[in-house]
């Protein structure tokens, strides 16, 4: 972003990478896949790079409002400084926070989740899917992220993206408004679960496996981790893969 601003360019979108997208080994691949799609399509975009900080979501959900606002205000200053108008992110937690919680602190942007952006690109014919890729005809199930679904009522965009891959979309028993959390929200990602009789991601993975799907599609870095761990726990990693939507699209596009 700094480079573009220096040369007087203003990109169409700011791609908010997020901490997982920047540092998590598995989710970096999602970031890369999404960027490749953007490059291929020729979308003018920028990232903040080292100027990006955590949105503060986990701090706020864990109760630390001070820390949240410190992160948020700093991010808003950076984004307002670059006169950012439109933000796209591959993380529902970042999406929710920037979209719903930054306006109260002076950050007003149009914020969309990458599933919505991908759907737009497909609808506009900018992303042309070959349809004959490795997913063709396969059973795929989609895991609703709480911060995309219930929190922001985005249920159809990710499903439209998956359907565009010419696959058989199979739903879990608990889906859409009744979707079961992967167990990582509300800052649970950063601590061990409280004592109980089962881990939430195992419960959810069992439900996903029960659909007979060969891949579980997600649209959230935390869900990706939790579902991947769940599949490993069930020793099914050889025949059931967990993918982010952007990875599936990039694969189909052969990039």
């Amino acid at each position, binding site marked *: 972003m700094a480079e573009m601003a220096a040369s007087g360019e203003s990109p169409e979108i700011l791609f908010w990478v997020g901490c997982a997208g920047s*540092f998590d080994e598995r989710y970096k691949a999602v970031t890369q896949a999404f960027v490749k799609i953007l490059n291929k399509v020729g979308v003018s975009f920028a*990232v903040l790079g080292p100027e990006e900080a955590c949105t503060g979501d986990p701090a*706020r959900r864990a109760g*630390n409002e001070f*820390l949240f606002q410190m992160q948020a205000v700093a991010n808003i200053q950076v984004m307002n400084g670059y006169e950012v108008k439109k933000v796209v992110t591959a993380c529902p937690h970042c999406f*929710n926070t920037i979209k719903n919680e930054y306006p109260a602190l002076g950050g007003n942007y149009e914020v969309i989740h990458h599933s919505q952006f991908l759907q737009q690109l497909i609808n506009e014919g900018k992303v042309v899917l070959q349809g004959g890729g490795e997913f063709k005809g396969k059973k795929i199930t989609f895991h609703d992220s709480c911060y995309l679904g219930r929190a922001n009522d985005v249920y159809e965009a990710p499903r439209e993206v998956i359907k565009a891959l010419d696959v058989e979309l199979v739903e879990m028993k608990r889906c859409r408004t009744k979707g079961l959390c992967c*167990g990582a*929200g509300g800052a649970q990602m950063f601590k061990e679960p409280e*004592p109980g009789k089962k881990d*939430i991601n195992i419960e959810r993975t069992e439900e996903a496996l029960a659909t007979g799907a060969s891949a579980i599609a997600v649209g959230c870095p935390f869900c990706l981790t939790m579902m991947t761990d769940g599949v490993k726990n069930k020793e099914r990693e050889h025949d059931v893969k967990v993918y982010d939507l952007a990875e599936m699209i990039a694969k189909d596009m052969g990039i």
Partner: protein
Amino acid sequence: MSILPQILFILVLGVAGYILYKRVSFLRRNIFLGKKETRNDQTNQRWKTMLLVAFGQKKMFKNFIPAFLHLLIYVAFVIINLEVLEFIIDGLGGSHRIFAPILGSAYGLAMNFFEFLAIAVLISCIAFLIRRNVMKVERFTKPELKGWPAMDANLILVIEIILMMAILTMNATDQILAERGLEKYTLLNGLFFSSMLQPLFIGMNDVTLVFIERFAWWFHIIGILAFAVYVTYSKHLHIFLAFPNTWYSNLKPKGEMKNMPEVTNEVNMMLGIATEAGTETPTEIGRFGAKDINDLSWVNVMNAYSCTECGRCTAECPANLTGKKLSPRKIMMDVRDRAEEVGKSIDAGGPGLEDGKSLLGDYITKEEINACTSCNACVEACPVNIDPLSIILQLRRYVAMEESGTPAQWNAMFQNMETSFSPWKFSPSDRFNWADQVKNEEAK
């Protein structure tokens, strides 16, 4: 003719009215122990939400069978209360079925419809008793329902059954007396359901029948008034509070957490950002987050009084499903119990909020709130738009900012965020490293 019954009736009505007035004032005061919060925007949307969710029971119909049975009881409750209007006029004026001559044959039809509803309520209540006590539907067997709450639920169902039996008994004997041509009794053209009870009474003499008919009449009206008072002590308050509760629903996206402007002021000061209100002395800063009910918003407390403990929230809660201690229903029950405790203490001249107890600690434990994934399943599940998550998050704010009592792993996460601007301990300068691989590939 004696006017003694009329005097007695006025007395009963007066006593019930007085008790109800006291009870409503008590509840109102308790609800407003919560902090001020203004939710009067988007009035059109609010009326619409109330009509759909409370009046139309939209969210109940996610599960058809209980929703249908519940609808029958609800419709009967609303419509049979029209008959109570006649009861009151008759009671005050010493008349008997005052609407019968006015409405003519429509009256008989209406009575038949009311009887049908009474039967529907009877069947529904029996079905609900079976669901609770025989089938033991899982959400009715959770630990927070042990004792009074389970008893409360069964009592409500039994009282409703008894009240409906009183109507049917009254109608059955009333019509036998009318057929025998007793003064004051009006013959209606057959009451379908109560006529089935008539063989029980047909052999009795007029005096006994009049006694039974009068007894059933008084039992029904006193029963209804007593039930109205009982409701104010019971989870059954939802029959009234569901309406304001849905009107004051949160209309914002469920994922949004409310901003804390008092923190914003401090953060802006620390970062040297001028704020519009910067020059004004900040209003007295209370507690950060919530420790007790007076730290919550009055909407949170009204939520608690509107909760009928159906447990749909707890049944959907991922933490509860996997054996954690958290139950969103218990959160609501705890808020109500604490509000009741504080309210009673204040009324008795006691210490009220300063009784050395608090919502957090004495009612709700950290283990419970720490188990929440903030997934909003409980909020989505509630048929009357109660928001347990809002309470949980306010309690967490208190723990984090006033007690520094968050779990050690969260404290570590806070520290990472303070030093590296990420919940994980990575160098901020490495944030862009993912791009190297893309650049390399594209360079090829």
